[in-house]
Structures are given as structure tokens and as C-alpha cells.
């Protein structure tokens, strides 16, 4: 008789880890295909369309890189927070607050200050905005034991309503003819793009530098070590004298701030004005959660996983148009991928072997 035996796996080689991840992704695509089939869409056509749309042409690839910028920034920051088991689900709100403050600085002083001054100022303001939204839940968690999943999410909704309040009210632009939205940013406050694309390179460079610094911080600094201890063994951390308040605040300062950067990039690089929350961020804050998870909480790998999920977003847009599928399709794909990644984790932590039962279990 055959039985399934599950035992702990002591260690896992990088190759095994990679193979497991790739197999999980393939299995997930299989499941997504099944969902497409049920919904009456040819799965092979849809899935190939997703990847042709994002990686199959120069235009698609440029769009993929454009959308990867916020995902890498936010996903990189989330790897830090998730390492400490600080479940920051509020990147969406942090991004919006970054967009609000960065956009405000650009609108207010973009006419008077030159680009080299205004752009760094906008990013600084955006970082501050995102960081503020991140610090509140960290403060609430340590001081009042408030679950950060709930607090970060509530702040998401509050930020979205706040932005809407601004663009339909006090910040409504004169050039919008009564429609919600601010005026366009002055030229000095608009980020340059690589010609023939929408890739705002200042943010791209910022994203790459950020994840490299984060990688060094995570693996080579005392702070990075403390973050890991808090996440893996908080009891030990307390005995070792780690200051939970300081460390958590710093984690969320960085994680929120990077999301704020992403918000500035979207406003100053893509839209050029503040509009409705749903148009500024197409769910980057949530997609970045999977980006961080697929990166196995390694900030550097967030570059690869960010690019991958950006590809799914772009490809998702492509099949929406050609197959008439709703925008929510991408969420199904993302959710399914996440489930299969979790399943993959199980096989990395446990050794599953099928064997002939030799004797009755004692």
C-alpha cells in the first residue's frame, strides 16, 4: 500500500527553490487557464496573449518596465516589512499620500523652481507622505497592540477618500472645466521619459538604487538582523534588547516612504496631474504584496518578480481589450498565482515522499 509521508526539510538548495517556484507558477497558470476555460475563453489563446502583450513586443516591454517601477519600489519595501512579520497591506494608501504631497509640492513651486530642485523636493515630500501613512500603523501596533492589517487597510480607504475630497473640492483645477482633478503639473515638475516610451527614468533609477541599498541593509546591517529576529523569534528579540518600537517605526518609515516614491513617480511621470485614486494606482499596493512574496522576501529579487507581475498587468490590459474581459481578470490571475506560491512554500519546507508502507505505524 502506498502512503504519503511528510517530513521536515532541513535545508533547501537555491536550485530546488528556483525549480519549486517555477513549477508553482506553471501550475498556477494551468489553474488560471482552467478558470478561463470555465468562463468560455480559450485558455491557450488568453495566456499566450498575456505574455505576448507584455514581453512579446518592444512596445509591450516598455510598458512592462513602466509598470514595474512602482511594483519594484513598493515590493522592495514590503520585503522588509514582511520579514518582521509586519503585514503592511496599506501600500496603496501610502502611494496615494505620496502622490498627494509630491503633487502638492509640484503644483505649488513647479513654476518658480528649476527641475533639479523641484523634482528632488517632490520625491522628498512623497517619501514623507508615504512614511507618515506607514508610521501611524506601526505606532498603533506597538503602543496599542492594534492589528496592522486592519489599520493599514483602513488608512487605505481614508487616503483614497482624502484624495477624492481634494480633487473634487479645494484642488479642483481651472483647466478641468468642472471635472474632478487638479491642473497639470508645471513642466519643471514633470519627469523625463526615455524617448518613445513612458518609462520615467528618474523613478526607475530610484527604484533600482533603493532595492540595492535595501538588500545590503537586510543582509549586512544590524538593523536588517533585528528585523529578521523580530519576525522569526520575537521572544529572543526581547531578551536581546531589541527596541521593538524603534525598529518597527523605522521599518514602516522605509516601507511607506518607498510607496510614497512610487506615488510621486505615477503622478509626475505618467499622469501629470492628480486624478481619481483608481486612476493613479491600478492596485499596485496589493500586487506588490505578491511581488514581495515571489521574491522570497529578498529585496533584490523584487526586480525580477516586479517585472513579472508588471508583465501580467500589461498583458491583462491586452486581453481585456482583445477578449473583452473585465479589469478584475488580473486579480484572479494574481490571487491564483499567490495561492500556488503558498503551495510551493509547503514543498520547500516539507519533504513529501510516496512510499510503500512497510509496517503499521506505531
Amino acid at each position, binding site marked *: 500500500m502506498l502512503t504519503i509521508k511528510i517530513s521536515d526539510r532541513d535545508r533547501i538548495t537555491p536550485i530546488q527553490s528556483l525549480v519549486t517556484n517555477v513549477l508553482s507558477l506553471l501550475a498556477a497558470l494551468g489553474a488560471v487557464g482552467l478558470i478561463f476555460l470555465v468562463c468560455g475563453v480559450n485558455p491557450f489563446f488568453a495566456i499566450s496573449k498575456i505574455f505576448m502583450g507584455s514581453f512579446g513586443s518592444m512596445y509591450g516591454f516598455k510598458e512592462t518596465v513602466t509598470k514595474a517601477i512602482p511594483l519594484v519600489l513598493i515590493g522592495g519595501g514590503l520585503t522588509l516589512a514582511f520579514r518582521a512579520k509586519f503585514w503592511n497591506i496599506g501600500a496603496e494608501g501610502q502611494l496615494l499620500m505620496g502622490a498627494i504631497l509630491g503633487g502638492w509640492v509640484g503644483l505649488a513651486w513647479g513654476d518658480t523652481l528649476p527641475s533639479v530642485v523641484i523634482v528632488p523636493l517632490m520625491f522628498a515630500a512623497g517619501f514623507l507622505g508615504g512614511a507618515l501613512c506607514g508610521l501611524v500603523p506601526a505606532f498603533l501596533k506597538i503602543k*496599542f497592540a492594534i492589528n496592522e*492589517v486592519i489599520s493599514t487597510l483602513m488608512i487605505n480607504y481614508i487616503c483614497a477618500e482624502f484624495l477624492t475630497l481634494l480633487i473634487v473640492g479645494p484642488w479642483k483645477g481651472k483647466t478641468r472645466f468642472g471635472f474632478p482633478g487638479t491642473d497639470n503639473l508645471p513642466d519643471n515638475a514633470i519627469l523625463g521619459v526615455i524617448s518613445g516610451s513612458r518609462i520615467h527614468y528618474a523613478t526607475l533609477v530610484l527604484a533600482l538604487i533603493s532595492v540595492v541599498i535595501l538588500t545590503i541593509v537586510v543582509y549586512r546591517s544590524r538593523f536588517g538582523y533585528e528585523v529578521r529576529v523580530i519576525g522569526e523569534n520575537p521572544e529572543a528579540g526581547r531578551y536581546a534588547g531589541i527596541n521593538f518600537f524603534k525598529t518597527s517605526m523605522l521599518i514602516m518609515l522605509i516601507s511607506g516612504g518607498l510607496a510614497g516614491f512610487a506615488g510621486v513617480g505615477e503622478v509626475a511621470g505618467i499622469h501629470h496631474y492628480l486624478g481619481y485614486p483608481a486612476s493613479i494606482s491600478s492596485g499596485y499596493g496589493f500586487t506588490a504584496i505578491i511581488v514581495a512574496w515571489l521574491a522570497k522576501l529578498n529585496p533584490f529579487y523584487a526586480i525580477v518578480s516586479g517585472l513579472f507581475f508588471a508583465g501580467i498587468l500589461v498583458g491583462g490590459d491586452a486581453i481585456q481589450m482583445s477578449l473583452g*474581459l473585465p479589469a478584475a481578470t488580473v*486579480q484572479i490571475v494574481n*490571487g*491564483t498565482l499567490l495561492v500556488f506560491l503558498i503551495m510551493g512554500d509547503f514543498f520547500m519546507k516539507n519533504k513529501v515522499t510516496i512510499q510503500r508502507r512497510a509496517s503499521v505505524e506505531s
Partner: protein
Amino acid sequence: MDDVMISVLQRTMVAGTPLLLGTVGEVICERSGILNLGVEGVMSLGAVVAFIVTYTTGNPWFGLMAAIGAGMVISLIHAFASVTLQANQVVSGLALTMIGLGLSGMLGKPYVGRPLAEKMNDVAIPWLCDIPVVGAVFFRQTPFFYMAVLLALVAWFFLERTRLGIKVRSTGEHPRAAETQGVNVTLIRYACVMIGGGFSAMAGAHLSTSYSKSWIEGMTAGRGWIVIALTIFALWNPGKAIGGAFLFGGIFVLQYLLQPLGISPNFLAMLPYGATLLILIIIGLGDQRKLSAPAQLGEPYKRGER
């Protein structure tokens, strides 16, 4: 008491109903030790399934039953990941929310903007509905309201007063001890996650077949997340959930009450979310030991490990 006040109270009950349903489900789930952050997604799926089935069959009760079924089935994803695979429950719950929101958007797309011909009609309870004020507020309500309150009381009785309820609680407090007493931890947890999903889907059905009689994407508007906060607010007690849910129902209604005063509707829309934070802070200021969260909430249980 004037008619306006009665109408406000009645709408408070209506607005609190989906919150109560969701909270009772999450309480049952969390008492067994499983944190389910998928409520928002399951609620959304419940809303769309209830709408589609009601739209096609013309019978909202079929819609409700289909929604509950769909909610229980989709929750299996979370049960499998968190119980069988011992995965991180936060991540798996988020995945469930994404899938639920995605599926509901996909399934519901052709139905956006179509009004429902047959909705869940209000039911007046004979005799009781004739009591002044009380009758109008509590006894001329949607069936969902009666079901929510009744189920909350049943859930309280079940968890606190029955043998099976003790098994559920012990599974959340100390699964190893429970197992040595012959409790099937895996089975209990699977069942509780599925029951929780059924409740969430029911809450969604209320939104689309009784509260608004239509379907649009994002109509759950964060109620699933407020439910998670309410579960803490209710101290994992379905009885206390009744008070919490209708308190929040009142905050939802307050939005519409204050609008004529010229306050920005977007500012008012922040109220429920701000209130959630405020209430959690108030709980946090109190005695933490009174916060009797199930001891093993969110912790995967591995059989045979010492």
C-alpha cells in the same frame, strides 16, 4: 419620536445586518484558530452570485442559497492552504480576497447596471410590528436582519453552551490538547472556515438583493475588513457582535444624515474607517488581558509535533 428618527434607526439595522453576518462567521472561524482575511472577497462573490441567481430565477431565496454555497466552496482555498499546507494565514487570506474580488468582477460584468426585478421583500412580524417605534424599527425588516440576529444568538449558544462548541474553542486555544481528547482538529478547522465563508457570502447577498438591489464592482466597500475589526471589538463573542455591528451600522447611516449639512461626502465616507481605528485604539487603551483572542489564532497546527 418622530418619523425621521424611526427611519434612521431602521436604516441603522439594515446597514448593520451585513456587518453582523460577516462578524459572526469570522468569530466562528477565528475561535477555531484560523484567521480568515478573505471576508471582503467572499462577501463580494456572495453578492454577485446572489444577484445573478436572483436575476435569472426571479427568486431571491435561491440567490441566497447559491451565494452561501459559493462562499463555502471558495473558502476551501483558504482552508486547504492554512490547515492542510500550514501556510501563512495572512497571505492565504489575502489571496482569497483577490480571487473573490476578481471572480466577482468577472462573473458580474454583464449584470452591471441591471436592476433586480425581484428583491428580498421586507417581512412584518405579526403582532410585534404593531408596537409603536419598536415595531417599525425591529419588526418590519428584511429577512436578512432577522436571520442575522437569530444566527448570532445561535452561534453564541453553539460556541458557549454545546459540546461541539467546546471542541471548536479548544481547537483554537490548544489544538494538541484537543486532539488528545479525540477532537479532529483538521475537520473542525475546515468546517469553521467554510461556515465563516457561508456567513460572509450571506452578507454579500444582503447587499445585492436587499440593500441595493443591483450589482457594481466594489460594492462591499471595505465591509469585509471592518468585519475583521468588529471581530476583535466583539471580543470573539457572537453575542457582543450584535451591539458592535449595529453601532457601525449607525455610523454608515450617519454619513447620509450629515450630508445635508454641507459636509463633503468624501469626508463623511471616511467615517466608518476612522471609527474602526478609533474603536481599536479604545480597546487598546483598556486592559490587554481582557482581549481574550484564541491562543492559537493564526498559528498553523502540525500533527504529531512535540
